[in-house]
């Protein structure tokens, strides 16, 4: 079972880094959905099936759907969000 655990931890870290270190928002969201799935499996291996159930339902399912919805809304905005304090001031005027 050590092989499984090492592989699981390695992929968990890989996916976590991958979901943060992306140039595209959509890639991050898909990575985050998969991260939720792997975290649920990790909770099983840590011996807490109840936390795993919550993680599967909330982390992988509902959060994933909400994030996808959010990405869709961002796409609908014609102009991108302003970046940096100066741009934010410009947007306020």
């Amino acid at each position, binding site marked *: 079972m050590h092989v499984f655990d090492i592989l699981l931890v390695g992929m968990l870290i890989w996916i976590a880094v991958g979901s943060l270190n992306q140039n595209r928002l959509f890639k991050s969201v898909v990575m985050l959905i998969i991260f939720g799935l792997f975290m649920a499996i990790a909770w099983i291996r840590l011996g807490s099936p109840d936390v795993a159930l919550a993680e599967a339902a909330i982390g992988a399912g509902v959060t994933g759907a909400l994030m996808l*919805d959010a990405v869709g809304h961002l796409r609908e905005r014609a102009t991108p969000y302003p970046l940096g304090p100066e741009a934010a001031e410009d947007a306020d005027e």
Partner: protein
Amino acid sequence: MTLALQALAVTILLSVAIGIYRIERGPTGTDRMLSAMLFGTSGVALTLVLAELTRLGGLRDMGLTFALLGALTSVAFVKRAWGADD
């Protein structure tokens, strides 16, 4: 039998690792979403295998949850986020 189940669990995990390549490559958001859908099925299988391995029958409920919520995520993608990655 424990060894066979462990081998199956590692194999499924490896298949997920292969599929992550598709998220990197894309090229469209749909292709990326396909890997997430693939891992929904793999997650169900992995959970059921672990339920048998660890003798925790309650984990089968988690497999059911995965099965139901995987569909929800796909529907959310098609209805709300289609074309968000072009």
